[in-house]
């Protein structure tokens, strides 16, 4: 069994950079999804937010990863607005608090970070699975990650499965009728469209996979 490589602040920074380039590349697609059942700003929102995060984290490479996550969360709250800003903002802050001032974290701690992020989103947004929100991508990803890590998988491998679960969850939002957020105003007309927030969440998981794989 290979020795598990420690994840650290650099991993968090590279995660945020990966998110930033990924949502920037998919900006128009995310906005288009949000135009169908929302107000057409999701791509701009997350691009603006993660660009600010990357900037805020610049030169903070040696800070403990928990602090970096908290700073990233705060930056999202302060720059995104909308629904996704507070949701992913408090998610990253809660995730960061799990790590305290620890200079590194392992696979099990990563599970706890993402579980705290999920709990925070669910508490703030009061969304349950099946409501057609980012929760539908994040919850299956956290469950999968927890299971794989418990079964002894390496973080990068476990994240590959988790990201796939997020994508499956994202795709599964298509037939749902939205019960939370703007899309809920559409009633039955929300059926047949993929949730933008679940889509960016799947991108965020894939970005994490890449960041962790690169750290290993």
């Amino acid at each position, binding site marked *: 069994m290979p020795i598990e490589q420690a994840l650290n602040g650099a991993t968090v920074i590279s995660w945020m950079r990966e998110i930033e380039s990924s949502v920037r590349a998919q900006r128009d697609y995310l906005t288009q999804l949000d135009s169908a059942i929302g107000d057409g700003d999701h791509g701009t929102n997350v691009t603006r937010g993660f660009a600010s995060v990357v900037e805020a984290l610049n030169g903070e490479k040696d800070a403990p990863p928990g602090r970096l996550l908290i700073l990233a969360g705060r930056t999202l709250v302060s720059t995104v607005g909308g629904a996704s800003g507070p949701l992913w903002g408090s998610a990253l802050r809660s995730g960061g608090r799990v790590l305290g001032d620890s200079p590194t974290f392992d696979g099990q701690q990563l599970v706890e970070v993402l579980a705290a992020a999920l709990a925070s989103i669910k508490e703030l947004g009061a969304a349950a699975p099946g409501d057609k929100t980012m929760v539908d991508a994040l919850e299956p990803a956290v469950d999968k990650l927890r299971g794989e890590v418990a079964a002894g998988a390496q973080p990068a491998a476990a994240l590959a499965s988790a990201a796939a679960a997020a994508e499956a969850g994202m795709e599964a939002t298509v037939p749902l009728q939205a019960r939370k957020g703007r899309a809920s*105003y559409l009633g039955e007309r929300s059926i047949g469209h993929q949730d933008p927030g679940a889509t960016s969440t799947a991108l965020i998981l894939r970005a994490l996979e890449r960041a962790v794989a690169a750290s290993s």
Partner: protein
Amino acid sequence: MAETKMRKFMNDPANVVKESLAGLAAAHPNLLRYDSAAQIVVRKDAPKQGKVALISGGGSGHEPLHGGFVGLGMLDAACPGEVFTSPVPDQMLAATKAVDGGAGVVHIVKNYTGDVMNFKMAAEDAADDGIKVSAIVIDDDVAVQDSLYTAGRRGVGATVLAEKIAGAAAESGADLTTVSDTVKRVNERARSFGVALSSCIPPAAGKPIFDLPEGEIELGIGIHGEPGRRRAQLGSAAEVVDVMVEAVMSDLKPSRGSQVLAFVNGMGGTPLIELYLLYAEVDRKLRAAGVEPVRNLIGDYITSLEMAGASLTVLHLDDDLLRLWDAPVHTPGLRWGA
């Protein structure tokens, strides 16, 4: 259908909101100032010691809401987000601090997930700083069912009326509870319903949010360019107003003989000639329904960029609300008696 192209007076799409606010401040230095660092619009003479302050905010693209309602007898500050995007808590916190005169601050929050969450975070921070904040959520849009299966009713036209009426209460020296209760009362006694004849084009997106096939309209729209509850054939103005009045009145259910304020609001791209034509129908139908529109407001007050469309808000008046409505107001967007 061919794609409608963006034709806007702007420089960089990313700076539309900031540049427009700079224009607002340049035009009305006697009423307000624009703090571009904090991205807030603040009443010139704020904070006023002992006066309850009112702030509101939300995505931009709804002008004159909210920045255009800062001034005497209305808002003490406005927090404009990006176009159709809720502002961030930092803005609401900065605004709350800038206007607090010791008597507390009322947050008027339109009921959208993002607005509610961002305002909530700001209120928590303000409380940490020892400022009394009372947040009231506006949710007057009858197009959305208020059920477990939605984010609840949206806040639309009643927001303008609440800002005016509660602003008058605050100006007259009412305390925090009274001003909050006034906002609540306006919200409880007002209902709205909107209709779109075209989509709008958010500057950052550069294209319409939805396309409407020829001769169709969206019924039950909000103010963020989002599609409505359903599509219908564009009927006559009389038929459209039937739908609006029926939707609003069947929910509001004011007793016969009630006095109401009828607010016919343009969404930004519908000219005044049409709004007055709609008002003719509204006035007639409200009277036929047994209520008397003793006050009215007709024009573009809570808009969706250049969307063609209109909304109807009916406020069930009482003596108090009527008196506060008639009280002087002097803001860029609403002015009388001053």
